Every structure is written in C-alpha cells, then in structure tokens.
C-alpha cells in the first residue's frame, strides 16, 4: 500500500495532484470545518443578494448592511450586558439574554438599513448601484465613527455564541464523521445559515412567494397584470434580505469573535455577491460557490498550520499566500467573463418599476 502511494506521488505533474488529494484527506477535518465556517458569512451575503435580485432589485450594499449588523450586534450586547448583567449561559450554544437581545437588534438594524435601500431604489427610483454605494459608505463611516468613540470606554461585551460541540463518537464515525463535524460543529447562526440556504432553495422554486418573486424579477409588468403587487413584494424582499445580511454580520462579531473592528466584514458582502453570480442566483448554488471560495482560504490556512511534505510542499511554499487571498476574486472574474458558462441575471434586475397608470 505504502509503495503504491509512493509510486503515485512520484509521477510528474499528476503526482502533485495525488499528493494534494492525499494531503487534503489527511487534513480533511481541519480543512472541511474551516471551509464551512468561512463560507457561512459569504453564503448569507449571497442569499441576501439572491432575495433582492430575484425580485429585480440590485443590492450592492450587502457589505454595508453586514457591517452595521456586526456593529449593532456587538454594541447592543455591550448595552444589554451593562443593564441586565452578563447572565448565566444556557448549556446549548452558550445562549444568554443579552446575546439574544443583541442579535435581535442586529437583525432589526439590517432591516432598517435595507429599508433605506428599498425606498431609494424602488420609490425614489435612484440608480440602484449608486444607492447601494451610498449605503456602503454611510455604514462604514457611521460604524467607524461610533467604534472609535466607544472603544475609548473599553466596553464590556456580551461574549459570543458557542459552537455545538459534537461528542467524539460522532466525529469518529467513518466516512461521514468529518462532514457532520464540519456542518454541525457551528454556533446557532452558522447552523441557521445552513438551514436557511436549504429552506430558501425550496421556497424560491416551490412556493407561491418564490414564484411571485421570480415573476417580478423577470417580467414585472406581466406579474402586475395577474394581480401581484410588484412594489410591495420588492419592498418585502429587500427588507427581509437585510435581516439575512445582518445575520452574516452578527456571525462575525458574535459567533466567531466577540468584538467589533472597523470594516471587519472586509469585502465579504462583495464576495457574497460574486458567489451569487457564480451560483447563478440560486441559494444552493450560492452556497456552493461560497464553499469553493472559502476552501481556497481554508486550504491556505491549513498549509500554514501543517505544511505538506515532499514536492507538493516545495511547490506550495513558492506560491505566495496572497495568491490564495486573491483566488475567489479571480474565479469570479473568470466566471463573469463567460469562460465557465454564462451566468444570466433575472431579466428585470436593476430596473425600477413604474405602474402603467403613473406614466
């Protein structure tokens, strides 16, 4: 057996691939868990994009909404802890009352900021990309301003949600143990995100709401003639999508860390948008693309953690770490350029709707 592996690894070029597979198998648990954890905020951002764009509203302010969600989740945790005390965490997820209040506040803030985008792009009919850009700048400015102001007080935060640690017997199940561990060894927001992806996929293609959303995104006039209120449906989708993006922000400041830094979303809103495009405007596809983007990062982390040996190790140490950082963006550009098949947006994406009678 060992001889077969050694032989495989020695083949030129293909051997490198074999070594990579071997390395990944050895570090499967670490890489898979890291990839899922890194993919969650990207997937939530992409899901926010899917909800908006399927109904015909371009949303490039996901980044800003996430950032506000992250900030409000953290700061309301501080406020709630100051008023209520830290509270005793429940055995599951480390839930405390301040944490739950903070999460609710984060979602609400995300919905409010999305309402602004909805109003600007649906009612005022401002160019939707301009509107999104403004909201991104405003969110970065406001959270940066308040963060600088508040950090002077060195506030006491509400801590973070805890992952659902699986017992070793489950993790050690052959073949599927690593998968269960990767998906389920997450906090409440992470698990909600995975459930949400599946639920939204079903809703979008199998429910009345989904049919209406897609109709409004493809041909709003036709949708209106069969009695769908285009304006109301778009408002509802955009506002609800704000909660999804804010959940992604809260994941960053309340689940994988317990603090807020200026611009901590670091472009995840935009990568989410890219994941949405690569995933062709479907929730599952978006999650898949998010996983793809995240695994390049997870593998690069793993390489830093335990460098592979042999000729693969030599090759990977030549490739600069920054290459892996840039990989998701390169993939997106390649996909957009149509190299890996076309990705076609909803037909009415970005076009404000005006009723016949109003013109």
């Amino acid at each position, binding site marked *: 057996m060992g001889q077969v592996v050694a032989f495989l690894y020695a083949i030129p070029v293909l051997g490198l691939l074999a070594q990579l597979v071997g390395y990944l198998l050895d570090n499967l648990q670490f890489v898979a868990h890291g990839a899922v954890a890194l993919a969650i905020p990207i997937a939530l951002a992409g899901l926010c994009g899917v909800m908006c764009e399927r109904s015909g509203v371009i949303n490039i302010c996901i980044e800003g909404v996430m950032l506000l969600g992250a900030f409000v989740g953290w700061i309301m945790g501080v406020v709630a802890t100051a008023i209520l005390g830290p509270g005793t965490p429940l055995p599951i997820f480390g839930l405390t009352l301040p944490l739950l209040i903070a999460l609710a506040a984060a979602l609400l803030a995300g919905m409010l900021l999305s309402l602004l985008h909805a109003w600007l792009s649906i009612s005022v009919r401002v160019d939707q*990309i301009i509107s999104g850009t403004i909201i991104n700048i405003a969110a970065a400015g406001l959270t940066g301003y308040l963060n600088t102001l508040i950090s002077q007080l060195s506030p006491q935060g509400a801590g973070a949600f805890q992952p659902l640690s699986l017992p070793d017997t489950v993790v050690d199940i052959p073949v599927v143990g690593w998968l269960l561990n990767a998906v389920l060894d997450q906090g409440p927001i992470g698990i909600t995100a995975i459930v949400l992806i599946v639920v939204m996929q079903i809703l979008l293609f199998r429910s009345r709401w989904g049919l209406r959303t897609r109709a409004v995104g493809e041909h709003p006039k036709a949708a209106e003639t069969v009695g769908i209120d285009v304006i109301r449906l778009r408002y509802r989708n955009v506002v609800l999508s704000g909660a999804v993006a804010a959940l992604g922000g809260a994941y960053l400041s309340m689940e994988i860390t317990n603090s807020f830094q200026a611009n901590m979303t670091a472009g995840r809103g935009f990568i989410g948008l890219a994941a949405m495009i690569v995933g062709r405007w479907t929730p599952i596809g978006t999650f898949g693309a998010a996983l793809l983007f995240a695994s390049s990062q997870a593998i690069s982390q793993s390489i830093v953690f335990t460098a592979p040996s042999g000729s693969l190790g030599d090759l990977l140490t030549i490739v600069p770490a920054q290459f892996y950082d840039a990989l998701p963006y390169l993939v997106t550009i390649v996909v*957009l350029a149509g190299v890996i098949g076309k990705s076609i947006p909803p037909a009415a994406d970005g076009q404000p709707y005006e009723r016949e009678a109003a013109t």
Partner: protein
Amino acid sequence: MSRVDSALRRAWELLAIPVLAIFLAFLVGAVVIVLSSGLVGKGFDLGLPLTAYAALIQGSLLTPTGIVETFVQATPLLLAGLGVGLGFKAGLFNIGAQGQFLLGAVGAIWVGTVFEGAPAVVAISAALLAGMVVGGAVGFVPGLLKATSGAHEVVTTIMMNYIALAALSWLVTGPLKLPGSPQPVTASVTSAALPILVGRDGHLGILIGLVAVPLLWFLLYRTTRGFEIRTVGANPDAARYAGMRPRLVTVVVMTLSGLLAGLAGAGNVLGLNHQMTATFSTTVGFDSITVALLGRSNPWGILPAALLFGAMRAGAGLMQIQAGVPAELVDFVQAVILLFLVANSVLRRLFRLRGVTAELGTTETLSRSYGSEGVH
C-alpha cells in the same frame, strides 16, 4: 442687467441642490455628534457640533497650512474623481479607483527606486508614467471584459480592488521589500520624490491635478472623441447606429479612468509618503465616486467637489483632537451629502424648489446590464 439676472438664475439652478444637500448633511452630522456624545456618557452636548465644525474649518481653511493641506488632500480625490466622472460620462461605473490608485502608487515607487540617482526630471517622469501605465492596465482589464463578454464593470472592478490589495501585499512583502527591514515596506524614493512647491507638503502633484481639469474638460466637450464618449454614455444604441464604436469607447474610457486613478496614486505617494507599506490605507476609492457624483461628472464641477472633500479630510484631524469627534464622521457626512443629492426629487418637493436642474443625468444607463450580457 438681464444678463446678470440670467447668470444668477443659472447659478441658482445649478447650485441650489448641491448647497442644500451639503448643508443638510452637516445638520445630520450635528445630530449624530449630539446623540453619540450622549451615548458615551458625556450628557447630550448641544455645543459639541459647533466646536467640532469650528475645528474642521480652522484646520482646513483658516490658516495657510490648513489651505495647503486642503489642496494636498484634494489632489488625489480630484484626479481619481476625474477618472470616475469620465466613466460616468460614458455610462460606466468605475468602482475600481481604489485598486487602480494602490497599484499605480506601487508601480510609481517601483520605477522610482529603479531610477534612484537619475536626474529628478527623468526619475519623476518615469515614476509618474509608471503609475499611469499600471493604473491604466488595472482599468483596461474590466473595460476589455465588458466590451468582449459583457461582464459588468461594477462587479469586475470591485473584484479587481481585492486582487490589487493582495498584489500590493505580495509586492511589498516580497519582491519590493526593503532588504533588512523588519516591517513590510518598500525602499524610499528620493530622486523621484515630487518637489515641494509651497508650505510643508504642498507638492507638484497639486499642479498636475489642477492642469488635468481643463484638459479633461477639453477632451469631453471640445473634441470628437469627447462627443463620442458622451453619446455612448447617453445612448449606446443610438451611438452605434450613428457609426460610433461603443465597445472601443468602453475599453478606452475604462483605461483612461484607471490611468487617472493610477496617476492620483503615483502623485500622492511620490509627493507625500515616498514609499509604500503593505497596509497602505486610503479612502480614495469611495471618495472619488462621491466627488464625481457631487460634481455631476463635469470636470469644472469635480474641482470644487474635490476641494470640499479635501478640506473635510484636512480639517478632520484637528476636529478629532480639539472636539474629540472621530475623523470618520467625515465619511458619514459625505455619504449623507450623496444621499440628499440622489434623492433630490424628494428635496425639491420638500423645499418647493422650482426650475432647479437637479438630475444627475449621467448614471441612467448604469444598472441596465448588470451581471452579464452587455447592451451592445
């Protein structure tokens, strides 16, 4: 008499909305300052906005140093804003000024270090040229992709920003790293450093920025190419029927736009920092969009817009020191200015402004072809 009258009316028509938007945005900023002063437990300090804005004005307009600093801060915004505005004129939204700026700056430093020891004229020209070429190349890629495959520049330029960030980090920690330095920084340029013309750091770049304004205006409004650009922006289909080449215009304009942002980066780093760090941070990317929108994409409008935001940046430091109001307030106020500007239909209804031309005019074709499949 009637000529003065009509000139006044014209000024009112042009300026009413921007001035109102700026005034209202500072009002919103004041509300935020008061509310946040209550949040950090100083009690709601109603005088704080006045103290803060007084420091902002003092730091930017009331002293010679402040005025020079205003111009220094305004110059990169002006050059990058001209680039973004040029894009808007052709119906293209270049969100990639950030990446073009950063890589332009690295390119300038790289060539600057190569030409170390050469006569200043040679070194400076070579370094500035390198900044323009690199910035132009970073803009060319999204332009080419849009023209050939219809990949929307909004997404590709944002992606390019992150690729640029990774490339910057790689270059400064790797090939361009100053040997023996503990921190990831490049070597400093001296031959290619822009000469200081006025004050402590009023460098040559300011002049370059000011010269670019009439040049760009001439290109847009007095040449056939400029007419072609504006026609493609207004209606690409009509432009094509008239025998113009929307695809070519897309590529050329994106390249020029990137070139201007690259020049902004080169000028800024050759004039001020003289070296690059891996974490070089700037807000030029978004600020230049704000400047272009406030200036309605017209070079003569972008100049005062850049000076306004330059002044805000120049005074923000003093505001933070004297009033304890974090400098990030400036970013927020900028966004609110834009908000009122684009929601001008609401402003006009609210304040009963009649006969005021307020449409941004240039951005209507932007969202049409987002995602994939171009219009042409």
